[in-house]
């Protein structure tokens, strides 16, 4: 009962496109703020979104090793949030 003319790959690419649309929506919060923490939060959610989009691309383009890149993002994404949070509290104490 698979609808003709639609492949799983296309579904994944379409879903990735929709996730990018949601990312654009969240990006409004990153621009509008009003505080640095709001922006940081929005970009942090965008980071999780990126992990998902990369995974969807890996399935959609049938290149499973793209998941390596997603893995790096999953591991590193929170660094920026933690670094900037620390920076805003104790100015200069980044590391």
């Amino acid at each position: 009962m698979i609808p003709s003319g639609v492949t799983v790959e296309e579904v994944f690419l379409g879903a990735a496109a929709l996730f990018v649309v949601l990312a654009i929506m969240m990006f409004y919060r990153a621009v509008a703020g009003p505080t640095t923490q709001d922006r940081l939060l929005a970009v942090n959610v965008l980071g999780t979104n990126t992990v998902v989009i990369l995974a969807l691309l890996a399935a959609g383009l049938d290149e499973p090793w793209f998941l390596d890149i997603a893995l790096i993002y999953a591991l590193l994404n929170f660094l920026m949030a933690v670094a900037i949070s620390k920076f805003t509290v104790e100015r200069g104490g980044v590391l």
Partner: protein
Amino acid sequence: MIESIRFWAIIVLIAFGLFFTFVSAMGVLRLPDVYARAHTASQADTLGAGLALAAVALALGWQHATVYTVLLLFFVFITNPTAAHAIARSAAESGIDPWTKESEEEGETK
């Protein structure tokens, strides 16, 4: 038959993943302050990412790369609450007051 079940399962998983990410995006846009927005951020991290990654795992089938999706979810689950906590704490320490019903009723401008 199996193929068509798998296809529809993937569609359903992706649809729910998109739905929860959409809810999270709406929350990030609609909610009044940074603390409240952080709650919905964890929605995208948990069910949004989780269901979409489950769809990917289903599509990749039984191969080595499928383990990666589980690892991905594991790291997202470990690191993102840490980031959310860091952001909320930095907001608290820079003196951002949480929005409450009362402050809305008193008509305070945020």
